[in-house]
């Protein structure tokens, strides 16, 4: 729609923003047309002035936490009443603990039990509002557990698309001549649909290439497609960290360089992005890497990582808690905890979730004020890994990020990293897939310097000799007919 709406219109913009703000405060549906109007206006402003002004209000950075509290209380209460009246799961949950939904607020949130992810996996329909019109059941990729199904309405999807367009404009400065290449699992249809739709609102082009052989993905990035009014090569890449690592590994080996690509930026999320991978990717592609955090279950809520390395969440989209690793209480400042989300209306109206335990571990930051560009938004440390992948040894808790940062800081690391930890008598034994002679010694030395309880590092030239490593999204390879036929032949021979 925005491609047809030329945008501008100072008074219209002001009205659209007022209506949007009113929707949030009054708890009414957001008019998608208002957000699309703002998208068109941002583009018109950029055309006229060569840039836009301070857009912090579009990131929800303008209200202090104390001022937000009455609004958040009202929204949580409204969500609780809706969830109680309209979902099977939460009616039983509130009744089981003897709590009335109107009692729920920021201060009493802890009285409501956490919602384990397994509950949503087992029966997604128990969380669907009876009054909603479910349109699409999105499935997570399930790399870290069984896939989870989450129902969304058409309205929610259109809203996510419009909000993604705003993010494209505000955070990525996407332009109408840009081309977005999407290398995500084809099962992530909802995410791809929103990305392609958002590009369309801006007038940019998009292509969904999938998790194909990295050589194919690289050739698409480096190849030229001549279309009038478009950059000849993709200017933005959207992918997972592990698949980015795979492309970096193959790209470096086959001799690609920054001059072969037209990328300006890479949106990377879904998994831990290490500083080592970031450096290698930026060097290979000559593009800025923007790290994001998101989960299908809490869409459209997501996290942004600032220049200071904090993971920030927009309180307009929901309540984010950090629960300690036992699940009993909020994590203390400096303590590790699990991210827990309560997405609120009007962003979510179909699958209602209260205190969903994500399984993602972060460190709660000290309460002193931050000075980054997103300082007004609540923040935690970057993602440290999954709760089930934490390893405790001799009083020290080792996170997947600890290991990944250690491995991927080494320029000889094979990407994506495959690793496993085994507990032995004198420490943890780290098994790593690699082919460099000195890798084991270097990792061991660096690990000890980082105070990791590593007894030994064992480098395996093949993954088949390693203990099982956690799967990564790059493993969700989409095979060509030839590759599939080759695999069938191999299996037949075995």
């Amino acid at each position, binding site marked *: 729609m925005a491609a047809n709406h030329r945008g501008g*219109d100072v*008074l*219209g913009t002001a009205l659209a923003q007022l209506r949007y703000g009113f929707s949030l405060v009054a708890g009414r549906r957001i008019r998608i047309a208002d957000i699309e109007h703002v998208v068109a*206006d941002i583009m018109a402003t950029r055309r006229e002035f*060569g840039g836009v002004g301070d*857009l912090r209000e579009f990131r929800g950075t303008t209200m202090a936490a104390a001022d937000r509290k009455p609004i958040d209380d009202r929204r949580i209460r409204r969500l609780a009443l809706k969830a109680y009246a309209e979902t099977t799961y939460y009616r039983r949950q509130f009744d089981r603990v003897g709590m009335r939904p109107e009692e729920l607020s920021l201060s009493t949130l802890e009285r409501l039990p956490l919602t384990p992810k397994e509950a949503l996996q087992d029966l997604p329909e128990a969380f669907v509002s009876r009054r909603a019109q479910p349109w699409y059941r999105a499935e997570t990729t399930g790399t870290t557990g069984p896939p989870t199904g989450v129902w969304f309405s058409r309205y929610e999807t259109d809203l996510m698309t419009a909000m993604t367009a705003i993010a494209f404009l505000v955070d990525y400065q996407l332009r109408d001549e840009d081309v977005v290449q999407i290398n995500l699992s084809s099962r992530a249809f909802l995410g791809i649909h929103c990305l392609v739709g958002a590009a369309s609102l801006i007038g940019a082009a998009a292509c969904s290439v999938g998790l194909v052989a990295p050589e194919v993905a690289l*050739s*698409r990035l480096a190849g030229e497609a001549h279309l009038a009014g*478009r950059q000849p090569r993709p200017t933005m890449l959207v992918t997972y960290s592990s698949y980015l690592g795979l492309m970096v590994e193959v790209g470096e080996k086959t001799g690609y360089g920054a001059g072969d690509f037209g990328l300006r930026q890479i949106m990377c999320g879904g998994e831990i992005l290490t500083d080592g991978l970031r450096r290698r990717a930026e060097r290979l592609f000559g593009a800025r890497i923007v790290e994001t955090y998101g989960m299908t279950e809490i869409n459209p809520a997501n996290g942004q990582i600032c220049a200071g390395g904090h993971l920030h969440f927009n309180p307009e989209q929901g309540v984010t808690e950090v629960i300690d690793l036992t699940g009993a209480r909020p994590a203390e400042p400096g303590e590790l905890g699990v991210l827990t989300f309560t997405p609120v209306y009007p962003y979510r109206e179909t699958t209602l979730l209260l205190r969903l335990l994500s399984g993602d571990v972060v460190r709660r930051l000290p309460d002193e004020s931050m000075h980054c560009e997103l300082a007004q938004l609540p923040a935690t440390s970057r993602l440290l890994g999954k709760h089930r992948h934490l390893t405790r040894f001799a009083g020290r808790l080792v996170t997947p990020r600890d290991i990944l940062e250690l491995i991927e800081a080494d320029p000889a690391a094979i990407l994506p990293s495959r690793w496993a930890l085994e507990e032995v008598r004198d420490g943890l034994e780290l098994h790593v897939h690699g082919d460099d002679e000195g890798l084991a010694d270097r990792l061991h030395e660096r690990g000890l310097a980082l105070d990791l309880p590593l007894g030994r590092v064992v480098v395996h030239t093949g993954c088949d000799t390693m203990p099982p490593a956690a799967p990564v999204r790059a493993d969700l390879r989409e095979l060509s007919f030839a590759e599939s036929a080759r695999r069938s032949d191999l299996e037949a021979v075995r």
Partner: protein
Amino acid sequence: MTAEIAVLVVVPAAAILLSTLYFLRLRIERPPVGVFTLRDIGVMMAVVVALPVLYLALPSFAVATILGLMVVFGVQLTLAPIMTGRLALGVAFSAAALELTFFFRAPDVATVLNNLLLLTLVVGVTNLYVQSGIKVRDVAVFGALLAVYDLVATVMLPTMSEFLRKTIELPFPPVFAAWGGPLPVMIGLGDVLMLTLWTLASLKGYGRAAGWLAACSGLVLTAALVAGIQSGLLTGLFPVTVLAGPFMAMQYLFWRRRRGAEQTMATYRGIATPSLAAVSAEAVDERLAEQLLSGSPLGRPAPVGYSG
């Protein structure tokens, strides 16, 4: 200097000069997102039509309060880039309070002060519009619409004369005035705003020559009015935009034909827009033709990983 020259020539000239200097040197705060469009012109036109009717319906005290607040916030807007927001507001309020005091004690001084405050307001408001991206086309359309409105409201209907009769007796009247005889010589705030806005928009949209033409044509028009008054040809109210509006429309069409599409603010300020390496349709056609002729059945080598 006669009152007619002072009000009808010097005031618009001063407004144009000061606004242009302000435009060249200072940045006024504009909304982060949004550009003026014809839709905004439509809304402005609706306000222009509704305001006099509203003022005539309201009691004088209310009208004076609204006019006073408009002056205060207009002056504050102009001064904000030069001093802190609070100081600008303080200066604006103080000046307005001073005018109000003189209104009761020394009306001649109040008239001079009102002229100065309105001049300040004109500088800020015209810069707000132009620095917020209003186009030459938009101002030309607005001018043409105002010409029609002014003809109706001033010549055919008593709206503007009644409006003027009411507001000239109040503090903060929306007119520049000077006393040179039994009756004051006046030019409306809106007329000076339009002449100034037209000059700035032309300067930004089509460059210096257009800016000069706009300024000179406006001043020639007002000088002609002076000649008309002094010769006795013109008496009573004369709607300036009835002549200025069509002049603006003609100038726009002239520049449009001569120079094509008008400049954006980014182009005017020489802000480098991101490189548009995206190719034209002709260049794309040429490259695709080369690829088709390059030999393979599909016109290019098979992409890596493709094997049918």
